[in-house]
C-alpha cells in the first residue's frame, strides 16, 4: 500500500463575486485538503472482500432456513398433491420472510452497508427485491389456501373465509398480504409517475405495518418455529437485528445528531440563473463528520417542507464553519429555495454515499462533472490529497457565463495546480457527452487530449444518468478499469 502526502498549503481567500440574493454568503475560505490518502489495489480488494462476506452472510440465512426445512423432513412431504402444496407453502413462507427482512434492512440506511456499497446500490438492491418477495409470499398464501381447501373439500372462497375468521392470527396475516400488494403496486414505475412523492412515501410506510401484521401467525401457527429452539433463536435474532438497525439508524441516530448540532440556514446565495447555495451553521460543525462527495437528506423545517427530505451533495469540503449545498432549480421544492428565510431550522440525515476519496486507489484523478453534478466535484477538488498536476477536472456546462461554482473551481485549480477544462456549449450528437463544437473527433480522442492520464487514474463522474453512461462508455474505450470508475446513481 502506497501513501503519499499532498503539498501543505496555506488557505487563500476566494473572492466571492456571485450575485447575492438575500445577503452575501460568508467569505469563502478553502478548507485545507487531506494530507494523506491510502492508495493501491489492496484498498479495493479489501472493499470487495467485505462485500463478499456481507453477501455471503445474507445468502447463508436463506440457505439456513431452507436447510432447516429439509432437515425437518420437508422433502418427504412431496408424495401427494396436498402434502406437496403444504411443503411448498412452508418453504416459500420461510424464504420469503427471510428475504423480506433483508429487504427491510437494505432501506434502513445502515452505515455499515453504505460504506461498502453506497446508498445508491443499496437502494437499487432494495428495489429489485421488492417484486420477487411479493411473488414468493403470494405463492405461500395460494399454496396453503389451495391445500386447505382440497383437504376440507371446500371451495377456495369458503376456505379463505373460514381460515380468516377462525384460525388464530390468520386475519392479520391476510391483511399483511393485502398491504404488501398495495405497497408494491404503488412502487412500480407506472404508478410512481402518477403518485406524488409524499403519497407514495405514506403508502410505503404501510410496508412496516404489513411486516408487523404478519409476524404473529409465523410464531403461533407456523410449524417451523414453535418448539424448535434453533429456528426460534434464528428468527428472533433476525427480527431483532433488523428492527434495531431500522429504529437506530433510520430514526434515533439522526434525531440525536440534529439535536446536538442545531442547524440553521445562515445564508442563501444565488450562484447562477438557476442555482442557489444554501449555507448552514450550527454547533460543533467539526463533529458533523462526512467527507467531500457525500450527500445529506435535507429537510427544511417549515410548514410546507418538514415532511419532505431531499438528497443534496455538499458543495464544499466539510469544515467547522458551515455546511453548504448548491442546488439547481429542478422541481417545485428546489424552485422555491431562493425564497428561503435565513434562520430557518433544518434537519439533516446522513452523510451518505461513497463518491469519496475512500474509493480512490490511484495517484492521478480525473473529475468529470456536468451541470448540476458540479457540487460534489467541487468539494472533492478542494479536499483530495494531491500534488500539482495530479488532478484533472472536466466541467460540462451549457453556458460558460451561467455555470454554477465555475469561479470557485477555477480558483481551486489555479491555487492547487490542477488542470481544468470547461466544456461549454449545446449538446452534440445523441451518443456524445461533449458539446457540439468538439464532436468532430471521437469522444475518446478528445478525452485523452484533455486528460492524458485518464486510463491510469481514478475517475469520478457526476451528472445526469444518460450523460454519465456515455462518459463511462468512453472511459471503457480508453482503457480505464471499471474498478477505477466512480459514479453515483440517483436512485431515489
Amino acid at each position, binding site marked *: 500500500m502506497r501513501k503519499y502526502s499532498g503539498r501543505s498549503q496555506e488557505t487563500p481567500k476566494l473572492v466571492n463575486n456571485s450575485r447575492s440574493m438575500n445577503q452575501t454568503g460568508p467569505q469563502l475560505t478553502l478548507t485545507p485538503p487531506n494530507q494523506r490518502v491510502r492508495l493501491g489495489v489492496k484498498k479495493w480488494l479489501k472493499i*470487495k472482500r467485505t*462485500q*463478499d462476506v456481507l*453477501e*455471503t452472510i445474507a*445468502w*447463508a440465512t436463506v*440457505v439456513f432456513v*431452507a*436447510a*432447516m426445512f*429439509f*432437515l*425437518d*423432513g*420437508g*422433502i*418427504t412431504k412431496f408424495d401427494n398433491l*396436498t*402434502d406437496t402444496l*403444504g411443503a411448498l407453502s*412452508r418453504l416459500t413462507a420461510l424464504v420469503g420472510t427471510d428475504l423480506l427482512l433483508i429487504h427491510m434492512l437494505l432501506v434502513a440506511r445502515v452505515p455499515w452497508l453504505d460504506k461498502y456499497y453506497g446508498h445508491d446500490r443499496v437502494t437499487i438492491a432494495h428495489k429489485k427485491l421488492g417484486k420477487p418477495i411479493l411473488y414468493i409470499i403470494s405463492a405461500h398464501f395460494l399454496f396453503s389456501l389451495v*391445500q*386447505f381447501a382440497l*383437504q*376440507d*373439500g*371446500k371451495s377456495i372462497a369458503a*376456505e379463505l373465509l*373460514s*381460515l380468516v*375468521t*377462525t*384460525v388464530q392470527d390468520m386475519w392479520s396475516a391476510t391483511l399483511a398480504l393485502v398491504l404488501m400488494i398495495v405497497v408494491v403496486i404503488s412502487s412500480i414505475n407506472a404508478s410512481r409517475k402518477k403518485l406524488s412523492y409524499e403519497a407514495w412515501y405514506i403508502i410505503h410506510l404501510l410496508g412496516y405495518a404489513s411486516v408487523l401484521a404478519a409476524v404473529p401467525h409465523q410464531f403461533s*401457527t*407456523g*410449524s*417451523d*418455529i*414453535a*418448539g*424448535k429452539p434453533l429456528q426460534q433463536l434464528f428468527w428472533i435474532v433476525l427480527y431483532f437485528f433488523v428492527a434495531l438497525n431500522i429504529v437506530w439508524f433510520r430514526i434515533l441516530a439522526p434525531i440525536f445528531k440534529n439535536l446536538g448540532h442545531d442547524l440553521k440556514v445562515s445564508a442563501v446565495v444565488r450562484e447562477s440563473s438557476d442555482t442557489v447555495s444554501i449555507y448552514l451553521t450550527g454547533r460543533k460543525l467539526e463533529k458533523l463528520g462526512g467527507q467531500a462527495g457525500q450527500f445529506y437528506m435535507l429537510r427544511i423545517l417549515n410548514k410546507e417542507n418538514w415532511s419532505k427530505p431531499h438528497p443534496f451533495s455538499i458543495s464544499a469540503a466539510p469544515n467547522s464553519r458551515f455546511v453548504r449545498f448548491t442546488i439547481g432549480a429542478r422541481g417545485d421544492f428546489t424552485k422555491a429555495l431562493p425564497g428561503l428565510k435565513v434562520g430557518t431550522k433544518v434537519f439533516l440525515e446522513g452523510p451518505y454515499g461513497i463518491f469519496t476519496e475512500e474509493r480512490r486507489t490511484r495517484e492521478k484523478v480525473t473529475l468529470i462533472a456536468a451541470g448540476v453534478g458540479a457540487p460534489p466535484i467541487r468539494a472533492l477538488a478542494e479536499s483530495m490529497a494531491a500534488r500539482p498536476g495530479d488532478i484533472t477536472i472536466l466541467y460540462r456546462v451549457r453556458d460558460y457565463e451561467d455555470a454554477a461554482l465555475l469561479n470557485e473551481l477555477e480558483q481551486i485549480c489555479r491555487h492547487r495546480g490542477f488542470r481544468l477544462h470547461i466544456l461549454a456549449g449545446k449538446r452534440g450528437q445523441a451518443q456524445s457527452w461533449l458539446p457540439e463544437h468538439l464532436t468532430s473527433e471521437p469522444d475518446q480522442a478528445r478525452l485523452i487530449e484533455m486528460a492524458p492520464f485518464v486510463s491510469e487514474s481514478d475517475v469520478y463522474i457526476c451528472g445526469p444518468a444518460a450523460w454519465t453512461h456515455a462518459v463511462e462508455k468512453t472511459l471503457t474505450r480508453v482503457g480505464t478499469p471499471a474498478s477505477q470508475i466512480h459514479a453515483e446513481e440517483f436512485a431515489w
Partner: protein
Amino acid sequence: MRKATKTFVSLASLGVLLASAKTGLALAETNNTLATAATTTAAATDTTGSTSSTASSTAASSTSTPASSSSSTSTATKKTTSTTAKKATTRTTTTKKTTTSTSSSSTTSTAASVTHVGSTIHYSNGPAIGDVKLTVVTVGSKITSITVNIGTATAGREAAFPYLVSSAKAANGTSFGDISRATVTSEAFKQALRSALAN
C-alpha cells in the same frame, strides 16, 4: 460478489441443501420405523418406553428368556421385579421396571409411576372438528406413555396422533411445534395433554 466467491458459495450452499435434504429424509425414515415399532410394542405389551422402542423390546425379550419356564409374561414380570428387589439394579432392569409399571398401570403401580386420565377435549375450530382424550403415565416428572383414548379428526388428520404422541414424549410436555396441516388438531392434543397432566 466476485466470480470465484460466487462459485464457491453456490457450490457450498448446494452441498448444504443436498446434505440437509438427505439427512432429513433419513431422519424421517427412522422416525417412521420408530413409530411403527412403538405401535407394535404397544399392541403386544401395551407399552411404549421412554427410551427407544428397540431398547424396551430387548428388555422385554431378556425378561422372557430366564422366565421361559413360566407360562405368562405377567409372571415373568413379577419374577423380575422380585429379582430386582434382591439383587443390585442394573441398567436393563431399570428400563424393565419402567416398562413393567407402564404395562400394569391400570391395576398396580410402582411408587414413582402415576397415571393421569385427561378429560375429553372437543375442538371445532375452522376446518377441523374432533375430540381428544388422553391417558398419560408419568414416572416422576417424565412422561413415559401416552395413550390416545379418543382421537378423532377431519380429513385424515387422525394420522397426526402418533406423531403428536412421539413429539410430546420427546419434548416431555407440550412445547413442540404444531404439525403442519393439523394445527388445530395439534393444539387440541396439547390441551388434552395439559388437562391429563393436571389430573
